[in-house]
């Protein structure tokens, strides 16, 4: 298993680590038993732009690096654009991940969807209409 330089960089100097006090969308996926939990905080503006995003991750090097990269990739973007982010795109932006670590990148995608879903729920909207699901099913809480 070999990590790319970019993975190692994002792991060593993760961007956007922490919490947002007045977040208006928070999502958490994964479980500690499998060894990975990811929590994403969003600050979304009234016109649907992600003004700020932060994360906390319990997981391996790849989990931390993908959290960092995913938050970088959606910062300043609209929710619609953010929803288009795939784990593949995150992995590619990191110059690839070892095959055994691809599941860690799914976590970042799911945590983001979960946070966006939470944002819509807080607005009183049904996230399922926008996301296609409420980003809270069993799949989202499984490690791979």
């Amino acid at each position: 298993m070999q990590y790319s330089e970019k993975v190692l960089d994002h792991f060593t100097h993760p961007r956007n680590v922490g919490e947002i006090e007045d977040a208006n969308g928070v999502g958490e996926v994964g479980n500690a038993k499998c060894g990975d939990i990811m929590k994403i905080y969003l600050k979304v503006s009234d016109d649907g732009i992600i003004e700020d995003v932060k994360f906390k991750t319990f997981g391996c090097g790849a989990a931390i690096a993908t959290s960092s990269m995913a938050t970088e990739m959606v910062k300043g973007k609209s929710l619609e654009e953010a929803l288009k982010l795939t784990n593949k795109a995150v992995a590619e932006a990191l110059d690839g991940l070892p095959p055994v670590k691809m599941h860690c990148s799914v976590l970042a995608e799911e945590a983001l969807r979960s946070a966006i879903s939470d944002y819509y729920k807080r607005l009183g909207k049904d996230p399922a209409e926008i996301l296609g699901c409420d980003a809270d099913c069993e799949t989202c809480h499984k490690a791979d």
Partner: protein
Amino acid sequence: MEKRFVYADNAATTPMSETAFNAMKPWLTENYGNPSSLYRIGRAAKEALNDARTVVGKCLNAAEPVNEKNDYAPGEIVFTGGGSQADNLAIRGFMHGPSSKGRKHIITSKIEHHAVLYTCEALEKEGYRVTYLNVDKEGRVDLEQLKAELSEDTALVSVMAANNEIGTIQPIKQIAELAHSVGAKFHTDAVQAVGHMHIDVQEMGIDMLSLSGHKFRGPRGTGVLYVKKGITLEPLVYGGGQERGLVSGTENTAGCIGLAAAMKETVEGLDEKMGYVKKLTDKLVKGIMENIPYSHYTGDPVNRLPGTASFVFEAIEGEGLILRLDNAGVCGSTGSACSTGSLDPSHVLMAIGLPHEIAHGSLRLTLGEQNTEEDVDYIIETVTDVVKTLRSMSPVWEN
């Protein structure tokens, strides 16, 4: 503190000693004769190989050599391509060979190395019966269970001398006696033990013992299976008949000689060296346990290898820990599942009863005589820092 490089993963592998390298060198270059050849340079290689056998035999207190110049109690010392090969040969070779006398039951423990465990699992598929003994919280095998499981059908008991993840030393002499009480033979994987504790195959009642050169500053790809006289195994590798026909193939003369040189060096003054290493390790354990809250020491605090310090830290994951320690210059290892891409954390940490979520945050530091007090101070400081940072990023950590 100033950044330094500290290798604290001596249980994974060790830097080769100068003595071993110098012993090997001429056999890599000018002395290239094949030990099976009839001419002078071949015979010289054969002799050097047998001298290496004698050295290994003496270090283990194997039976006296039959004659001065030749094989150490012919065949008692079998060179292999490493510790795993020795384990495979011992267990598969014994069960398939005549010495198992038709008995079909193996007893081993839940915390063996995979070289033992997976060999046993393969044998189960062939119809052999295997009991995997439980261990207690500190990693000691359940002797009561062993007694209860032993029967006239038990061919072999294989329990490691010391564990590679948590360092726990097993009461192998007692286990050997129990095995012998029903006519079974006793094998021990001493890959982690050699060079860290005294081994005396005769005194301890060991019938077969595996060791690996690179764990005590010898070369990689070399190992030994000690096989007590009278035990007949099925070969691991068929062919030209080298190593008593058990591991055929042109002998790695240089490697065997390097292994023997490293073994001799490591066993000399063992008490003193291990006293020194133990002092370092005690300091390391104390420092880490005092500095880091919600940390747990794993393994047996008394019966353990002098250089092994193993821990779990709550709310963090091991792979990230290792990578960050590496950035700071410290080499260590973890039993976290994420480090290997598997779903479950180390089978050893599971067997001592750690919950999954805690086992993920494991760290193993293994010291050797090359380490210093300064190394230990640096490790303590670094681990403390890294654990703090990772916890600050962890969603499951609450201050």
